């Protein structure tokens, strides 16, 4: 029988992108979104996450190990491609390129973000609204966070499409096209959540009255 280890590793990479990393991303952005309801709400939500039982176990097995595996294997996959959008400028070929570019941007962003928050917490810093306010107190960092968060959300949304194909869930051209529209919708919806959280830290007062649409 052929050696099927490569197949298993690639399917593991694909699965981890959604479960647990993708789910964690949604969960994380949702907790951040409490910042739009004010300082106390965010601090309470962050505190709740910090006091979950078996926190270290969850962090290691649901967050760090899956992301490290997905990122290392993702880099290997990224550098196997010889991108050719200049010759074949089709939509899906662009998405293929952007999936790899956003993977690398996301890796840089996540590494810095974990260093500034979780690693500092291990050294005794308190993760709360004030911490994020201080991180986002200059235009460069706001830009870095906006690009990093959008890149991560793009990578997740387009990755969801790719996941549906990789597991053979959407096969026909029609179902693949509909999946494209649905994942574009997911990209915009999750982006609104992510951007609202960032700008709630940047300017809480202005934020409170300017963007509180009834449905959010």
């Amino acid at each position, binding site marked *: *029988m*052929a*050696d*099927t280890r*490569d*197949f*298993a590793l*690639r*399917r593991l990479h694909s699965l981890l992108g959604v479960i647990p990393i993708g789910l964690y991303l949604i969960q994380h952005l949702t907790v951040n979104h409490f910042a739009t309801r004010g300082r106390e709400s965010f601090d309470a939500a962050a505190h709740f996450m910090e006091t979950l039982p078996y926190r270290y176990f969850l962090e290691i097995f649901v967050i760090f190990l899956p992301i490290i595996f997905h990122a290392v294997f993702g880099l290997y*996959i990224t*550098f*196997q*491609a*010889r*991108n*050719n959008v200049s*010759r*074949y400028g*089709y939509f*899906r*070929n662009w*998405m*293929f*390129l952007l*999936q790899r570019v956003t993977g690398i941007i996301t890796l840089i962003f996540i590494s810095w973000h974990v260093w500034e928050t979780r690693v500092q917490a291990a050294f005794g810093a308190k993760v709360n609204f004030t911490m994020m306010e201080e991180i986002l107190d200059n235009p460069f960092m706001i830009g870095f966070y906006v690009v990093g968060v959008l890149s991560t959300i793009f990578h997740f949304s387009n990755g969801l499409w*790719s996941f549906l*194909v*990789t*597991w*053979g*869930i*959407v*096969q*026909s*051209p029609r179902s*693949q096209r509909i999946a494209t529209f649905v994942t574009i919708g997911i990209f915009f919806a999750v982006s609104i959540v992510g951007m609202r959280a960032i700008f709630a830290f940047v300017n809480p007062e202005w934020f409170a009255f300017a963007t509180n649409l009834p449905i959010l």
Partner: protein
Amino acid sequence: MAEENKVIQFIIKRQDDPDSAAYDEKFEIPYRPNMNVISALMEIRRNPVNSKGEATTPVAWEMNCLEEVCGACSMLINGKPRQSCTALVDQLEQPIRLEPMATFPVVRDLQVDRSRMFDALKKVKAWIPIDGTYDLGPGPRMPESKRQWAYELSKCMTCGVCLEACPNVNDNSDFIGPAALSQVRLFNAHPTGEMNKAERLTSLMGDGGLASCGNSQNCVQSCPKGIPLTTSIAALNRDTSLQSFRNFFGSDAQ
């Protein structure tokens, strides 16, 4: 008449043998109506003189059917991989640039060695084993609805265009490429071929197999035969998912 002086300009990427360096050579050949790229190459062969008027060696290329069914004459024409027998000069921007496909080793000039595609077909067992020591009989029938889509897959002429267009087929990767994958779907669809389905699927789960596809979908956009390559790939993705469960949890795996 002005017609008589009209010329067609070509820039051809040439290479004398598999190991020597490539170089460009320009040609100008007299215009005739309704020429295709192959008739222009034949003209160069008849009178091998480049645009500077120097005698040169004739340009080597491959061809066979001259009607886009054999796949032998594929090359890059103005940057696009396609068959030179159906590339009409009147529809091409000049100077017409001809290059060998970059995915395959060059034998000489525009002629490449597509052995890797034939090896890939052997690797995935893209045939139906019916030879034996006695007559096996007619075998089960195929439903007409299935025959119709399977027929589309059978049009593959191993031309190499889909491999050339794929960003994951290159020197850094051992990806088998879209053509052989789709052939697995074809032979698994056949009622007799289906008896070896598990074997073919398992062969796709090896290094450089199905999972090396990154869904850029250039193949389906480029295939001259309009083969639904990405539908085949997604269908095989489902089949291999199920096969891997069967291999691991089931009791009938070899």
